[in-house]
């Protein structure tokens, strides 16, 4: 029963992948090898597409594998399987969090967690910028500081950032405008 297998296998991935979509990838690799659902190359291609389309990478990849294996119902079932552990675990946590979020221990813990989450988010931005805006490999290759930045990308970053601070528009506006600029100026 392919649907049941898809659901259970993706449920397991959702249950054990700690740290988001990228943490789920090794599990997915094992899965497709185990069942021969697709080749490693096909999986890599799907992950690349999943990264560059909207939505969580793990969810996108699950939809892909499920669809490839058993059509539209397969895509839905694999995705539901992946999300189910989150829904169950988080609902239980949310229930207790609502009860205890005023508790001094919980409040104190979160007073430490919030600046750390800011650091975590900043590090995500840094990792994202490392590929597009800084070209660390150039610095290592020829030691040239001038080539550290991709100037086109850096320029776009500064313009968008200035616009965000000045106009305070909906984030979707900046994302859509950037997509257009990327197409027009061939980023």
């Amino acid at each position, binding site marked *: 029963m392919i649907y049941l297998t898809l659901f259970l296998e993706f449920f397991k991935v959702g249950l054990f992948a700690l740290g988001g979509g990228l943490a789920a990838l090794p599990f997915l690799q094992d899965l497709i090898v185990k069942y021969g659902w697709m080749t490693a190359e096909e999986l890599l291609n799907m992950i690349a597409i999943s990264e*560059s389309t909207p939505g969580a990478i793990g969810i996108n990849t699950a939809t892909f594998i499920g669809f490839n294996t058993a059509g539209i119902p397969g895509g839905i079932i694999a995705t539901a399987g992946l999300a189910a552990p989150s829904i169950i675990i988080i609902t239980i946590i949310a229930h207790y969090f609502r009860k205890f979020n005023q508790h*001094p221990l919980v409040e104190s813990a979160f007073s430490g967690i919030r600046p750390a989450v800011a650091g975590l988010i900043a590090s995500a931005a840094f990792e994202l910028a490392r590929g597009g805006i800084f070209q660390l490999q150039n610095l290592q290759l020829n030691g040239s500081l001038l080539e550290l930045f991709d100037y086109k990308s850096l320029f776009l970053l500064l313009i968008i950032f200035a616009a965000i601070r000045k106009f305070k528009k909906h984030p979707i506006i900046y*994302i859509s405008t950037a997509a257009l600029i990327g197409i027009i100026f061939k980023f």
Partner: protein
Amino acid sequence: MNKLLKIFLIFFKIGSFTFGGGYAMLPIIKRELVDNLGWIKEKDIYNYYAIGQSTPGIIAVNTATMTGYSLRGVKGALAATTGFIMPSLIIITLIATFFKRFQQIDLFQHAFAAIQIAVVALIIDIVIKMWQKSDKTKVSLLIFLLAFLLLVVFNISPVFVILGSAAAGILIQYFRGNLQNAYYNYQNDNQGSDE
């Protein structure tokens, strides 16, 4: 409009414009639920994200479930999560059916490269806002920098960073004497409400 439907639609919108990991959804969640609707406090989103980050599962789904629950219990959690997942299901099914060669379409590649830059700008903006909303103490700055360095330079798992910072938060409040005071007030408040 029915609140559940509204939660579903807002998270559908969030799912349609989240490019990258779970962090990429924060600017849109903040805009929709804090700035536009005032349904939750800004501080809460970051708490939910921290919880989402340190529990098993997809971070974005965890954050959506957590936020949805806080808005409308279990039904809210389901509405938010299905709303968030739906765009993925639709877009990926369309791509898998019609654009097997999606990767080779330059148009999407160019658009995505620039979208990533916009996401970096939005995230920097969010980090600045988080700092402005924080207690702005030296200790908080230290935790921020330490977390950033541990993640970027030493590649430590975010889960350990969050657990460590939770312990640090408790110890700091304890040594400042805030924890004991807060505990005293908390017990008094709870006794008051029980009677």
